């Protein structure tokens, strides 16, 4: 039993590490631009497959391939924002939602057309699990946790310590006041969409590292990522990290009591219960 409790703890953190960056991206875009971007799950898929191509076909070392894939995903995200989304900037919440749904379908099917419906494995050598403080962790699980934490930490530093980050927070907090304070919104929107694409792609590579790449990996992660973003407080990157842990732990530890097919349902029950107590999420401030 204790062994199981320990193992679930590890898998919860590992699951959280892949979902948290995507949730942070959802959170950022919602916080600044006020629409839920349903295409971000697909940026996980795109990031994972791009890393596969760059490492397997072009022979890049995987860490470099992952970074290049995330940068490319960020650029794709930025390009779509500057064309399609920019055209509907003042049109309310519905047009960008529909655009993101359309983009989601397009990206998902482009991946299917190029790589097929089967699964792919990132090219990583076999490895034995380490024993750390009684926990059994594979090197890839450890890498996943560390990379996720470092990525989120970097995003947090960018938001809290840079001029760009201050503009992001000002626009998310109070758009009109940000405008009269001289914040230019368009460069901020551009930076935020790049960051969101980048973050989601990192999450996608981590997910691929933990299991396999499939065309539906992003779609399967979308709802949990949204649950995490909402739980963490929309607009709050650190909240996304904490919420990912909560959702991950709730899902994994539910396996002690219910069948695994109920795992994601349990995560949503936890989401609902917490939102009853804190309607703006764990770290959310906005009423």
């Amino acid at each position, binding site marked *: 039993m204790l062994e199981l409790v320990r193992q679930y703890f590890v898998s919860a953190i590992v699951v959280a590490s892949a979902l948290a960056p995507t949730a942070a991206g959802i959170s950022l875009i919602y916080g600044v631009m006020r629409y839920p971007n349903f295409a971000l799950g697909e940026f996980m898929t795109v990031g994972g497959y791009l890393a596969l191509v760059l490492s397997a076909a072009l022979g890049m070392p995987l860490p470099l391939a992952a970074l290049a894939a995330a940068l490319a995903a960020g650029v794709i995200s930025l390009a779509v924002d500057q064309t399609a989304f920019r055209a509907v900037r003042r049109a309310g919440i519905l047009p960008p939602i529909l655009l993101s749904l359309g983009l989601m379908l397009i990206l998902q099917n482009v991946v299917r057309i190029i790589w097929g419906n089967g699964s792919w494995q990132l090219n990583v050598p076999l490895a034995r699990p380490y024993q750390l403080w009684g926990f059994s962790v594979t090197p890839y699980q450890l890498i996943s946790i560390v990379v996720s934490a470092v990525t989120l930490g970097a995003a947090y530093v960018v938001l809290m310590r840079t*001029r760009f980050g*201050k*503009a992001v*927070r*000002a626009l*998310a*907090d*109070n758009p*009109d*006041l*940000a*405008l*009269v*304070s*001289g*914040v*230019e919104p368009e460069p901020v929107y551009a930076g935020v969409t790049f960051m969101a694409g980048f973050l989601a792609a990192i999450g996608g590579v981590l997910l691929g590292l933990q299991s396999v790449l499939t065309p539906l990996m992003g779609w399967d992660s979308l709802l949990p990522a949204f649950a995490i973003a909402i739980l963490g407080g929309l607009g709050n990157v650190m909240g996304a990290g904490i919420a990912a842990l909560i959702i991950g732990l709730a899902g994994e530890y539910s396996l002690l009591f219910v069948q695994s097919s109920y795992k994601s349902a349990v995560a949503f029950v936890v989401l609902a219960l917490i939102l009853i107590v804190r309607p703006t999420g764990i770290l959310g*401030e*906005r009423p």
Partner: protein
Amino acid sequence: MSAMGIAVEGTARLVGDAVVAGYREMDILHGVSISVAGGEFVTILGPNGSGKSTLLKTLCGLLPAKSGTIRLSGIDVTRARARERLMAGMCYVPQVRGVFATMSVMENLEMGVFAKPASDVSSALERVFTYFPRLAERRRQIAGRMSGGEQQMVAIGRALLGSPSVLLLDEPSAGLSPAAVDDLFGRIHSIADDGVSIVLVEQNAAKALEISDRAYVLADGVNRLEGPARMVLHDPEVRRLYLGGGA
């Protein structure tokens, strides 16, 4: 417009001339004119929906003027964006949500010079802390968790940090206790004494008129009355409409 106007066009720091503005298809202002001299304290009165807030938003550049002209220190800023008007010395404090609620007091104040990243803020900061000593004690506090009066100080402090020549204040007394209003108005008055032109939109007509130099009364998006604050305060129509009876 009216013969009662005191500010002479040539010396005016802020001029709005026949300004038409509003939202999409609906005009709220149908040609409002105001003129504010350097260091002058001007109050804008009027019933709800008369266009007071719309006037301030149009002056600061949050809303576009559909026609008319706006001049700041002699420069035509009618087509200038909010950021450019800010750089030219016009700072606006909105009626509600005047602070960045998730930021600390210090971060809020720093947002006042966001448009001028290289500027040295130490003297401006000192000035803000002289007007509002309470803010100096609460630099690290998250603005959204402060009282309404303190938030109003943060909001005005943020605007002041940009060293404005014109300060547009939209109902800073909203939601404050009478004592807090007196306190705040006293501080606003000393800001005007230091040479900053103040344009104050207020529901609290009597108190605002007591400390202003001049006042404009708007009704249905046009100028209704203007003149020295004391004369407006004793105008029978103003007394009947805004000051509760003709006592």
